[in-house]
């Protein structure tokens, strides 16, 4: 499990006694990788001289000045790499001093631990340095995390490399390995496609969303370190994690780190603009309480369905997740379509059949459902008031399913229809029983998108666009056919959020 301080009482005791110095509740931590010191120099043995020099001096207290006027309040510092004990001790002494300075500014400090470290020594050193917790980065022996939790009273946050493995975790904070958010042309990737191919987008929005089963929110940290990175990369990293309510673990590339260290004006400007994006996310923390929107339900269990979640999101089909062990007629209320890719039990099949037959819903299933086509990729058949779509392949190809969704489901069943967003991904969420709808968009291209059209089920009188760059602006919303609202976004630089409200 990701967060090993599982006992709430122990957590409180730990915070009040051992960590009386600690920064606020971890749910408020805005994290940044802040590597440095002699261990980091050793770890980055191949880095050039200017990088090594910067890393060596990074834990001078002045580097904390960079955090002023940013929401960053939690630093992940280099703590243990399994180096000889003398080298590790030197690092940990440096970190101890630096952490003391950080705490005076209300900043939490977490030690990053890499494989090769001994549990007892790192636990002792972290306690001595009064760290707020430890972050495990890498592949550790199976019992390492549990051992560390026994020896160390603080919070331990492993960075999960396989999101599916921790999706069932009840830990109050999770860290997962993400991807560098970017849009690329297939031709540049050496992929031959059709004349109307669209860009490929690597995104973490689906990843963060995949941990949300309802309105309840908990912090999801996305770890990925773009190096080298442009200013555009930085703001995309921040927004890409934040759209669905997560936080990017801010990570500096070598150039930015060196230039910030030397207080280069351009670097400081880029840093400020990234800070503005972080602030935008934190200023709108209430959006995290909005529940994910989707008329399509995807049933998930312990199996790896991540590619479906990723690719269906990329096709701009909003969905909500249904835990397989909670599947029931009640859990399907409010859905208009359900994707069930695992082989259903008889009980599950009955629930799904009823959903289609009596409720008029659409069931999308693999060949185990029965009557799979022999030639066509999928077949549709009526099922009472609804219908079932059965794929030929077991399991159905995620890319094909994702692409087909826009054809299988009518626009009003999808609920949110987006136009002119080939380089963007949208995420919709609702609150107040659907009276407020938030549609966030992130443009992964380096150029603005002009004239994005959104259509959403329901009639909303007010539409307002929020962006990190500008003050909120009211958009013209018109009632489209079938009781739907249409909104035009004239221009989107990177991150935008359209808040639809029913009130006048």
């Amino acid at each position, binding site marked *: 499990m990701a967060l090993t301080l599982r006992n709430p009482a122990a957590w409180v005791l730990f915070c009040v006694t051992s960590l009386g110095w600690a920064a606020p509740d971890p749910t408020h931590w805005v994290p940044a990788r802040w590597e440095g010191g002699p261990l980091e120099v050793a770890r980055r043995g191949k880095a050039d001289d200017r990088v090594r020099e910067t890393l060596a001096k990074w834990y001078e207290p002045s580097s904390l000045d960079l955090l002023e006027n940013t929401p960053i309040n939690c630093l992940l510092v280099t703590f243990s790499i399994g180096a000889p004990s003398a080298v590790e001790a030197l690092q940990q002494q440096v970190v101890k001093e630096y952490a003391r300075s950080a705490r005076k500014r209300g900043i939490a400090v977490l030690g990053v631990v890499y494989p090769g470290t001994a549990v007892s020594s790192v636990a002792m050193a972290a306690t001595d340095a009064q760290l707020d917790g430890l972050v495990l980065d890498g592949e550790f022996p199976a019992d390492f995390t549990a051992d560390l939790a026994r020896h160390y009273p603080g919070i331990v946050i492993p960075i999960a490399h396989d999101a599916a493995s921790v999706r069932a975790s009840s830990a109050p904070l999770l860290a997962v390995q993400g991807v560098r958010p970017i*849009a*690329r*042309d*297939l*031709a540049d990737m*050496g*992929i*031959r*496609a*059709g*004349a*109307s*191919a*669209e*860009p490929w987008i690597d995104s973490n929005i689906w990843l963060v969303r995949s941990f949300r089963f309802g309105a309840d929110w908990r912090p999801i940290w996305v770890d990925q370190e773009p190096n080298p990175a442009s200013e555009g990369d930085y703001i995309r990293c921040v927004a890409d994690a934040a759209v669905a309510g997560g936080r990017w673990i801010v990570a500096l590339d070598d150039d930015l780190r060196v230039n910030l260290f030397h207080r280069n004006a351009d670097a400081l400007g880029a840093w400020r603009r990234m800070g503005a994006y972080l602030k935008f996310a934190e200023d709108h923390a209430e959006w995290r309480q909005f529940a994910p929107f989707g008329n399509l339900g995807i049933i998930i269990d312990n199996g790896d369905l991540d590619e479906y979640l990723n690719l269906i999101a990329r096709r701009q089909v909003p969905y909500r997740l249904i835990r397989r062990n909670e599947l029931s007629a009640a859990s399907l209320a409010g859905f208009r379509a359900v994707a069930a890719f695992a082989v259903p039990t008889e009980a599950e099949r009955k629930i799904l059949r009823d959903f289609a037959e009596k409720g008029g819903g659409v069931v999308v299933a693999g060949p185990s459902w029965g009557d799979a086509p022999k*030639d*066509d*990729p999928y*077949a*549709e*058949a*009526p099922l009472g008031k609804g*219908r079932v779509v059965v794929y030929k392949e077991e399991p159905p190809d995620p890319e094909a399913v994702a692409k*087909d969704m*826009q*054809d*299988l489901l*009518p626009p009003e069943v999808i609920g949110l229809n987006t*136009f*002119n967003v*080939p*380089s963007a991904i949208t995420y919709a969420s609702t609150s107040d029983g659907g009276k407020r709808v938030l549609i966030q968009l992130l443009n*992964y*291209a*380096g*150029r603005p*998108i*002009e*004239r*994005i*059209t959104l259509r959403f089920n329901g009639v909303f009188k007010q539409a307002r666009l929020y962006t990190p760059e500008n003050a909120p602006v009211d958009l013209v919303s018109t009632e489209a056919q079938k009781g739907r609202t249409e909104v035009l976004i004239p221009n989107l630089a990177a991150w935008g959020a359209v808040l639809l409200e029913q009130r006048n």
Partner: protein
Amino acid sequence: MDDARGSLSRRDWFTLSSLAAGALTIKGAKADVVQPPMSPVSVAKVVAYDADLVAQFQLMFDQIGGIGQLVRGKTVAMKVNLSGASGTGRQVGLSAGQTSWVHPNIVGALTATFAKFGAKRVRILESTFRKRYGTPLEDTLLNDGWDVKAIKTAAPIVEFEDTNGPGQAKQYSLLKVKSRPYIFDAFCFNHSYDDCDFFVSVGKMKNHEELGVTLSMKNLFGITPELLYGLRPKPDGAVVSPIGNFSPWTRERVFHYGQVQPPEGVPQEMDPTSSRYEGWRMPRLLTDLCGARPIDLSVLDGVEAIIGGEGTGMPGTKHGKPGILVVGRNCVCTDAVAMATMGYNPRAGRHEAPFRLYKNPKDHPADQLIPPGEYHQYADNTVMMGEAAGIGTADLTKIDVRGVPIKDVMWDYEAHWKGQAPV
């Protein structure tokens, strides 16, 4: 319907076409016994889409002899090139109008220009290749950020129709090929291609992976309805989706490869034993289409375009800014001039640029590689097919080029594609 075609009546047109065709079919006859028709072509340098395109088109239409009397009080149909629009064909950060689709400002300006000339109705047409038929064409256009509402107000009546099926009509229109037919002597189309007085092919100046270039003649492939030519008959008892038809086959099987014949009741191939090689078939098929639905006006958008292929999925394609507009009444003449502005010889033959093609055996049906396994393939030259069919001349020495001289606008697609052109 209006028969007039400027100084050439439709009767003249058909007479000339049939004479040319007849001459060509006489064994041993020389192709120049009857000269294929020529019509002036206007060329312009336009560096950006925010130029005053209405004024630009008015000038170009004046240069080719005027179109006012042809559109006044009439229904103008514009077949716009959206590359089938199964996706938007986008490159990161660019609109499809900057790469593989015609740009909305071109279409908007044309609509306004036709309205200025008194057109009663303007119809904007394209067959979008989607499994779910019935999506309004306007929504497809929104997908590239078109200001559909503005275009709708640019003329008294502006209509959009997805011509991939019968559309608003109950049945398809049967149109016979009036030029020399090569593969089909008739086709079925959406009614809008028949029910118009003035037909405009608005193409993009692009390369094409299998045909070398795609211009106003190639644009007409998109008038063939996928729902008619691409649909496989459903087995007995099969369910037709309540939200639309499902097309597991594509019209490419009928047209490009000749693997299957059109459905029963639809005009069949004249000779099913002819070559199945698409590089042979498609230039002839396109000529047949232009003979069945003659183009009254060709408009070619080369202001910005993708180069090296017709869409963004082709490896090696690039975005370019040729800055060219070409307009003409005769599609063969217009396409020939456009090819010249792209740096190509419009009379080029097989294995000459741009008809020297590269086909990866991994990506193409084995029977489409002649000889098998060979990477380097060919296509026949569509404008030369058009010339031989008597539609128009592709001979630059005989075409009256007006506006900006070709040499002053030429933007060498091949050199830019290969990275040889100065940046």
